[in-house]
Each structure stands twice: as structure tokens, then as C-alpha cells.
């Protein structure tokens, strides 16, 4: 059955409406499923490191800590300043190592090199290592994402 100026039949209209609505319902069910499957990634707001353990670094030395589920490294520069990195290669997410004799960060996965300030200097890494902000608060060093208040 088709009305005089209609582009489609009653059957097509009904099928379209039914199919479309079923599609919407499927989407309605898909949403919570996706919510469940992809939980929000929680990056730590801050990590506290006791000064007693971490404050006494020698210049140029490195100490590891956990930045959430990623490794972090705390380093004392030659100038005596404390800096922190997320020690994960910016190329393909491998954990990097610090080679004290070469004074460089090295990623073994694809031979990526970073200098002692975490700047990419050789191999495939496209960006410097991610820096974290370090401040001192009482007995602790406070590590925060850079730019966070």
C-alpha cells in the first residue's frame, strides 16, 4: 500500500521504524557495556615520597618510584635540583633504564636514547620523557603532573 505522493510503502515505513528502533535499543544496551569494558583511567593526583628515603640523593643519581601503574624516576641534577620523569619511552611505551656511566636514559625495545634531562637524542622516540613536578611539603616530596596546581 502506498499513499499517492509517498516515496515508500507502508511496509517499508514499518520495517524502517522497527529496524531503526531496534538499532537504538541495541545502542542503549551497548552504552553501559562499553562503560564497563573501558573503566576510566585513573592517573594519580599526586604521589608522596618520604624525604628521609628520597631526599638524600647524590647529584646525578636516580631513584625509582611508582607513578600509579607506571614507573617513575627521581633524579638529582648536577645543580642539586630534584626532577622527576615518567620513565616510559614516548615511542612505544616500553620502560626505560638509566645508564649512569653514559648519563643517558635508554629504551631497549627500539634503541631509543634520551639525555640526562630526558630529552630525546637518538633512535625513534618522538618526544622527551614526560616530566613531573616535584615540590617539598614537610616530610615529603610531592610529585604531581606538570602544570597541576
Amino acid at each position, binding site marked *: 500500500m502506498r499513499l499517492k505522493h509517498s516515496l515508500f510503502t507502508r*511496509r517499508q515505513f*514499518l520495517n524502517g*521504524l*522497527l529496524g531503526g*528502533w*531496534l538499532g*537504538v*535499543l541495541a545502542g*542503549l544496551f551497548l*552504552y*553501559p*557495556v562499553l*562503560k*564497563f*569494558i573501558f*573503566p*576510566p583511567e585513573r592517573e594519580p593526583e599526586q604521589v608522596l615520597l618520604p624525604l628521609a628515603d628520597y631526599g638524600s640523593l647524590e647529584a646525578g643519581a636516580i631513584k625509582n618510584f611508582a607513578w600509579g601503574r607506571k614507573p617513575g624516576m627521581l633524579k638529582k641534577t648536577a645543580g642539586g635540583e630534584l626532577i622527576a620523569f615518567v620513565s616510559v619511552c614516548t615511542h612505544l611505551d616500553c620502560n626505560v633504564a638509566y645508564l649512569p656511566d653514559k648519563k643517558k636514559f635508554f629504551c631497549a625495545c627500539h634503541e631509543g636514547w634520551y639525555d640526562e634531562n630526558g630529552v630525546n637524542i637518538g633512535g625513534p622516540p618522538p618526544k622527551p620523557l614526560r616530566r613531573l613536578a616535584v615540590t617539598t611539603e614537610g616530610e615529603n616530596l610531592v610529585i604531581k603532573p606538570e602544570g597541576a596546581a
Partner: protein
Amino acid sequence: MNIKGAVRATWAWLDDRLGVRTVTDFLKHKPIPRNRHTPWMYTGSLVLVFFGIQVLTGIMLAFYYRPTLEEANKSIGEIMTKVPLGWIIRSVHSWSATFMIAIVFIHLLGIWVLKSYRKPREMTWMSGVLLLVFTLAFGFTGYLLPWDALSLAATKVGTDIPRSIPLIGAWGTRFLRGGEDISGDTLSRFFSFHVSVLPLCLLAALALHVYLIQKLGMSLPVGADEEAEARRAIPFWPNFVYREAIVWLVFAGVLVTIAVFLPPTLGKAADLMAPAPEGIKPEWYFLFLFQTLKVFPAKILFITGDTVAVLLILLAAALFFFLPLLDNKPAGRKGKIITILAFLLVVYAVAMSIWSLQTPSKPEADKIVPAPQNIKESTAIYVFLGGIWLSVAVLTYLLRLKIKETDRLLHVGYFSSDRR
């Protein structure tokens, strides 16, 4: 490019290689009888729908569940409190299990009362009994996985039952437990049963069951006039599917609604050395067996009561499995005794279950009671439920229009094979 033409060409390409048309043609001509017993025929596909929901939600829960002694209870707790909407997914899994088993029982009762298992459908019945066993095993193994006091106690009792069987019983208990006692190995084993062994077994039995149903066709009630039934029957596709779809939708809505408002709780992690909690009970579908075991005296003559009870239950299960061979009258004959037997069995199961519920169970202290985590989440959930019920209403209306349309087409002979 013409989209319609492309779709048609792709379909033709696939059909050439896969032979899809053989299947669709078969479904278009598979007659579904239309009489006062037709409602029973919705139960089978409904079980399948709930099984599908179990598979999907089960896979999702397994993404976060960790089947070890230290982490099992903790990981379920995290699913219920940390993973977004995890408590609802677990609740749907739990409630869908209940729905599935309830409808399996109803399905079975329908087949029994209608005597649909008679020649040539004996093996359909037997594969169905296997499916029932696997379904109950799913429930039993799944009950241990949250690893709280209740599930530990239920599993202790359940896995001890085989021991009462002479000769092979002790071996059965060791097989289920992975040792003399329940331990972390039992948990790993039950997880393996629940997510890999049982699904494979169930799918195999299901394939046989569904194949036989297609091969033998739907049964007619005892004493039906075959010609009149054939004239009244409707094709499975599309006329019957539209009717079934309404039932699926309504049940999906009910399931999700109940799951949101009555989520299962989680007790503290089970302690292998702690005494069993007072008034423990298994899941409702095992209550009648549980109570049967309870009422048997410790000693009957010179054998232990448990042994007698378990052997009686096994005998009943065997009789049940071989029912089509015991009641092997021709399909057209009535079977009053069998019908009465079904009725008595239902009365027995219901009475025993109610009796078993008379022992009050103590509500457990400090358990996790799931709820929406914030006002945003609860609002979203209410909007979601509203959307579902609106969809159910609209789709039911549209499906009824489709039913009318396809019935009219059937009536004027649009679907008949000589038309093509």
C-alpha cells in the same frame, strides 16, 4: 553507486558460497502449530535468550574477576564498587541465571505434560535433560566464585554429596575439589568448569537439541487433527519470530529492572577454618534436593541415610532421563499417569522448597550492598530504564503491526512455496 544493488550483489556472493538461502528457506517453511499449547513454544527460545545474556555478561565479568584464594572475593568487590556499572552487570548475570533456570523448568514441564518427548523425539528429550544438568552445574559452579561464607558452605555440602555413592563416590568428591578438602585449587577448578568445560558441553548438547528440533519439527498435542493443525500453522519466519520478539523484549525489560532494584550482595571473603553460617541454604533451584537430604535419618537399617537419599535421587534422575523409553506409547495416546506424576513432582519440589525456607537464615553482617555511586549514576540508570520500557512499549506496538501484516500476507498465500 547503487547501494541497494551492491547489498544484493554481496548477499548473492555470500549465498553462493555459504548456502544461506537453504537455512532461510527452511525457516520460512518451518510450521509452528497454532493451538492452545502454543505458549509453551516460547519457552525454548526464551531460555536461549537468557543463555546469550549469560554468555555476554559472563565474558564481561571474567574481564575483571580473578579466580584465586586471595583475590576472588576482592575482585568481585571491586567489580561491584569500582568498575563502572559493575554491580549491575553482576546483578544481571545473577538474575539472568535465575530466570534461565526457572524457564528451563517451565520448558521441561511443558514438554512433559504435552508428551512431546514421545517417538520420534526421545533423543530431543534426552539432550534436553543433559542441558538441564549442565545448566544446574553452571549454577552450582558459579555460586562458589564470589568466595564468601555462603558460597563456601554451599560448595562444601554440594561437593561432599558424591561421597555417599558407594565405590566411586570418594573419587567424585576428590575430582570436584581437587583434593580431599576445599582449597584454592577447588576455586580454580570451578572457574575452569564454569567458563570453559560447561560452555563446551552445553553448546554440544544444545547443537544436538536444536538440530533435532529442526529435523523433527514441532510436535502436535496428543490427539490433534493433523490436517486442521497444518492449515492453522504459521511459518517460523517471519510470523512466529515477530511474536517471540515481543516476549524476548518484555523479559529483557523485566530482567534489567529487577537487576537494578534487587542486586545481589557480597559477603566477606570465605574463611576455610570458620564454622558454617547459621541457616545456610543453596540457591532456590537446589532447595528441594537440599531438603530431601536433610529429612533422611542418619541410619536406615544398616546403611547411612545419605547413601539411601543420594541413590534414590540418582535413580530418579535416571528414570527422568529415560522417561521417553518408559512411556513409549504412540504419540497419539493419552498418558494420564505421566501427567499426574509431573503434577506430583511439582508439588513435591514446591513443598520441599517452602519447608526448607522455614529455617530462618541470619543476615550477614558487613557485606557489600551495591547501589549507584552518585546522583549522576542513579539518574542515568533511571533514564536508561525509562528508555528501555519506552522501547519495549513502542516495539511491541510495531511488532503487533508486523504480526498483523505478515498474518494477512500468509492468509492471501504470499508466503506459499508455489508462488515463487
